[in-house]
């Protein structure tokens, strides 16, 4: 009897709200495709000369900072070697020496399953790279215009004064893999805001600028401007490093998506709808 008279514990309230506008959703996925193709065709372009240098030219008397190659080991068998700042690593199977699409072992920088096209084909890789470069630029410009115009930038991405005070707690939450619930989950947290803003306004434009620095014609706009970044070959190295940082960002981004409710996140980026579960009121 006593049990029946107890009030039932309040059900947590669940509801969905529109988290991402259609424009953001479309531009997000266009960006995913463009960046994936740019990365993989970029690695194929890199494979045409799988070494990175620091300085104004490749032949300055200094060794490369990174070199991927194949060579014969002491026992005569070919091995893949990756040399970074003078330190050699055996990377057979992945870097330097890997199976080609026909099944045989071949000398190549990055393996065939990471490049577009998969076989050694520089001219075609450039076609892909420069086509998707424009998709990326046009999509990115559209995103910037939209974000300013719709106040997406000011309302959702620029940290508020309260955000800045919560940096420490947000850092701690991330390390403990703790995610906000209820009303709080409706806003990006401060680390997320800072990361998105630095990728959108820092890393990606920097990567584009370093890409332009590789063009002998863009060099003539202000002859010598590439020396600000250490010279033409340094610019090529920085273009590569920037791309790797984008890969790192995507890896962390996907990891966070996976552990903070993968279906909810995916649904919100596909249909816009994100589900909020309110903590029961005491």
């Amino acid at each position, binding site marked *: 009897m006593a049990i029946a008279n107890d009030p039932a514990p309040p059900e947590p309230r669940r509801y969905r709200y529109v988290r991402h506008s259609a424009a953001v959703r479309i531009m997000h996925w266009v960006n995913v495709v463009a960046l994936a193709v740019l990365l993989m065709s970029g690695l194929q372009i890199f494979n*045409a000369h799988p070494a990175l240098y620091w300085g*104004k030219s*490749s032949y300055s008397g200094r060794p490369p900072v990174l070199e991927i190659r194949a060579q014969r080991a002491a026992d005569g068998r070919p091995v893949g070697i990756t040399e970074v700042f003078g330190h050699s690593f055996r990377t057979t199977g992945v870097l330097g020496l890997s199976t080609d699409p026909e099944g045989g072992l071949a000398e190549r920088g990055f393996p065939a399953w990471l490049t577009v096209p998969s076989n050694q084909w520089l*001219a075609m890789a450039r076609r892909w790279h420069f*086509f998707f*470069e424009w998709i990326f630029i046009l999509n990115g410009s559209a995103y910037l215009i939209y974000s300013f115009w719709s106040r997406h930038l000011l309302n959702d991405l620029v940290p508020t004064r309260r955000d800045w005070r919560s940096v420490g707690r947000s850092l701690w939450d991330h390390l403990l893999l703790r995610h906000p619930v209820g009303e709080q989950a409706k806003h990006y947290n401060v680390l997320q805001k800072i990361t998105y803003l630095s990728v959108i306004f820092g890393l990606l434009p920097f990567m584009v600028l370093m890409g332009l620095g590789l063009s002998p*014609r*863009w060099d003539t706009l202000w002859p010598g401007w590439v020396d600000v970044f250490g010279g*033409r070959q340094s610019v090529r190295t920085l273009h590569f490093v920037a791309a790797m940082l984008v890969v790192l960002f995507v890896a962390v981004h996907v990891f966070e998506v996976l552990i903070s409710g993968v279906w909810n996140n995916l649904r919100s980026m596909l249909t816009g709808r994100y589900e909020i579960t309110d903590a029961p009121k005491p």
Partner: protein
Amino acid sequence: MPQSRSRRRFLLRSLLTASAAILAGCDRISRSSWAPGLFRTGERANRAVQKALTPRNALAQEFSESDLSPEFRSNGTASPDDPEYQRLAATGFADWKLRVDGLVEAPTQLSLSQLRSMKSRTQITRHDCVEGWSAIGKWTGVPLSEVLLLVRPQPTARYVVFHCADPMDEDGTRYYESVDMDDARHPQTILAYELNGQTLPIANGAPLRVRIERQLGYKMAKYLMRIELVAEFKHIGGGNGGYWEDQGYEWYAGT
């Protein structure tokens, strides 16, 4: 738990299968009849934007002696496999002559000593290869614009075609290249006969190679035999304006 593990394995395997399928799809796109043409619009757009935003006569960066590469890398042909070329090389190119003809008022032939007696320009520039490497060298030669003044191009001439001595395959297809009149008349476009203060070595294109400093290395034809002015280059070689262009590389190599 085992259930969730097998689910995870299933998800991972489907992800791997999906990415393999996407990659195979990309390769099929590369070999399709429509994609190369469509993707080319990207390179065309690069050219349009670069030409619009950089001045027509903007100079490429020039360097100092201390930036010179210790050895200027030889790429492509290192010594043309051609009896006629080897015969000319044996006598130090004393009998070699550059033919300049096509859509010009005064076609001519120029010997090495005639070229050396003309106005010269020396420049330390960076050579950017399409593969991604670069080397810095000091080049001395005749500005192509000087040679053009001599032969007087007809108004219909739109391109300068460089015909070379080096055979590129068993069929005997020889290297060739072409540029438009803007690049041909550019002050840094020279017909170089010296590299780093020495007679141009055979590995780097002796007796004469062209320098087109605002484009990639494959435009800078070596082992020049003939310069031809044309209105279009559809009838030459594979019709794309150059040996590498016929293999799928873009004619405008400013990127």
